[in-house]
């Protein structure tokens, strides 16, 4: 991202929200840049929707301020904010047809009829609903309803579009297709999108950056690759994608590599760590390895830099593009491994109870310090 882009287009400063004793959002601080497609990712009840509703103006923060484009909007009612929202339920007015739904925001602003007609046409074109303009919401499919909701929220050209689980109600195929449509539209209009989702795949494909949220706090904010490859906490590592986590204690530490003894894994694990992580010998750490970073082979691998362990095949599953394996180590610990099915073959790569070797490179292992 180049320098002249406004980095704190949305500025959330120390925002908290309490409902009685329950702390929904706990002292959150965040800056979102202009034109970003930012996702807030978390399980249900983590406070992500509350945060979004505070940006929209449906909830007032217990503490903290929210600024949009340099203007403090914390005390503004929803109808005075330069923000529009796409609801999870889509909230399409059932008593108005597609056209009237989309025009509603402009009507409320007192825009001239000719102007409204023109902009509604543009929007209908953008979301490809031109043929459905006179339909009432009951006569639309889920995907069409989603597009009506999107068009209705975009027509006022808000500075920020808030999307609450925008794709959750669609089936898988449609969801994938719509993801790319959303990204195209965002790119075309240059409006800043803030998406709330519980679906990590959705967050990964859509976003320029992701904030992972749990118990009202942000655990990590970063681009999808950072979140996936460099999780800073056990929760993030576990929540985003699948991962094998081994607890252990540091036996050797240098600038770049550490060696960890994990009771679960028979061999000592060597791992490359970021220079900014400070670890001492004897310290308890976690080592996390993604299933696709682990190699599986029948013969003992040559590479002696990395980790090599023996196990037997406990179970496996064929997914088409890749296969998942569950490997049981001698001490009973299960390790998940995935392997791309590069070769076209109906023959199985391994059978149940086959003896196999697992190996991974030191740079593939993530070092996690701390408990959360």
């Amino acid at each position: 991202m180049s320098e002249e882009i406004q980095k704190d287009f949305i500025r959330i400063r120390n925002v908290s929200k309490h409902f009685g004793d329950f702390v929904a959002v706990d002292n959150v601080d965040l800056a979102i840049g202009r034109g970003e497609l930012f996702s807030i990712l978390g399980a249900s009840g983590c406070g992500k929707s509350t945060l979004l509703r505070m940006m929209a103006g449906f909830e007032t923060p217990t503490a903290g301020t929210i600024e949009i484009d340099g203007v403090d909007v914390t005390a503004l009612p929803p109808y005075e904010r330069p923000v529009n929202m796409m609801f999870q339920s889509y909230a399409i007015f059932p008593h108005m047809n597609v056209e009237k739904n989309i025009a509603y925001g402009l009507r409320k602003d007192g825009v001239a009829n000719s102007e409204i007609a023109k902009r509604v046409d543009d929007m209908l074109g953008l979301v490809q609903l031109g043929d459905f303009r006179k339909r009432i919401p009951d006569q639309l499919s889920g995907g069409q309803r989603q597009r009506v909701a999107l068009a209705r929220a975009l027509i006022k050209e808000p500075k920020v579009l808030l999307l609450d689980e925008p794709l959750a109600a669609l089936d898988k195929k449609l969801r994938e297709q719509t993801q790319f449509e959303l990204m195209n539209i965002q790119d075309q209009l240059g409006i800043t999108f803030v998406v709330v989702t519980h679906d990590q795949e959705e967050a990964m494909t859509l976003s320029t950056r992701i904030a992972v949220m749990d118990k009202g706090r942000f655990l990590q904010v970063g681009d999808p690759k950072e979140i996936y490859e460099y999780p800073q906490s056990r929760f993030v590592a576990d929540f985003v994608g699948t991962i094998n986590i081994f607890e252990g204690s540091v036996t050797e530490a240098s600038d770049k590599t550490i060696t960890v003894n994990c009771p679960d894994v028979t061999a000592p694990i060597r791992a490359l760590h970021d220079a900014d992580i400070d670890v001492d010998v004897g310290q308890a750490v976690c080592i996390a390895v993604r299933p696709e970073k682990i190699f599986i082979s029948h013969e003992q691998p040559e590479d002696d830099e990395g980790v090599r362990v023996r196990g037997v095949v406990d179970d496996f599953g064929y997914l088409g593009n890749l296969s998942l394996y569950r490997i049981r180590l001698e001490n009973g610990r299960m390790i998940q491994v995935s392997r791309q099915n590069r070769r076209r073959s109906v023959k199985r790569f391994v059978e149940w109870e086959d003896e196999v070797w697992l190996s991974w490179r030191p740079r593939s292992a993530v070092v996690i310090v701390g408990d959360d």
Partner: protein
Amino acid sequence: MRWQRVTVAIPYLWLLVFFLLPFAIILKISLADPVIAQPPFTPTFDAQGGLSVTLDNFLFLLTDKLYAITYLNSVLMALAAMLLCLLLGFPMAYGIARAAPQTRSLLLLLIVLPFWISFLLRVYAWMGLLNNYGVINNVLMWLGLIDQPIQFMYTNFAVFIGLTYSYLPFMILPLYATLERMDLDLIEAAQDLGASRTQAFWDVTWPLARAGVIAGCLLVFIPAMGEYVIPYLLGGPESMLIGRVLFDEFFVNRDWPLASSVAIVLLLLLVVPIVFMQRNEAKLEEVE
């Protein structure tokens, strides 16, 4: 299959026995002449087997202005009570629909609770409240707001209050049913798109509550139109409503044919708004 037919047949049978048959009898009586006999009207077929019917009773309703005025009074009174019920009932239904689920059932119970006491007793209770020496006058005098009791009883006002009080639950319940089902996101969506709270109400809540409003209005208007007990107990000589006229024609004047024609016209008057509203509903659906 057979059971299905039986269950479908039951409501039709009910309508036949308790509505269509009595209606036919009333219609037959309304076309007869009054006589001092048992029964007090002429038979539909004379001794020779010829048809003997007359429209005299209906013509009489047209010639005597009293009836037209009474019908009009009743329509106005029922409309006024309906409007006040709507005005009071809408915020109440809205409040109940938005209350926490536990309090919601309690509030609904409170709305229905008066039905546990006989309707007649409740109207009598209003006599105790509205009396010259009743609770309301006593309180007003004690507060020093008035020094003479206000004449509430035996006025149109008392009838109006009585009708509103008695039929309010019939307004609240259907309104509650529609408001409770409404998706709250819709109101937030309207506000998000630039509508103030008031605008969001008129743009979203009100049109979506229309089915409940219509049902509630019909449920209040129809029984209020023909109400007999409330005008009889709370109203004075000025509150001549059609229910009272009907009663008097039947039991005081013993003019069954005239009373029957009064009833038939009342029924027609009630059918008109229902048909009108249904037409309106169908038309609105077409437009959208």
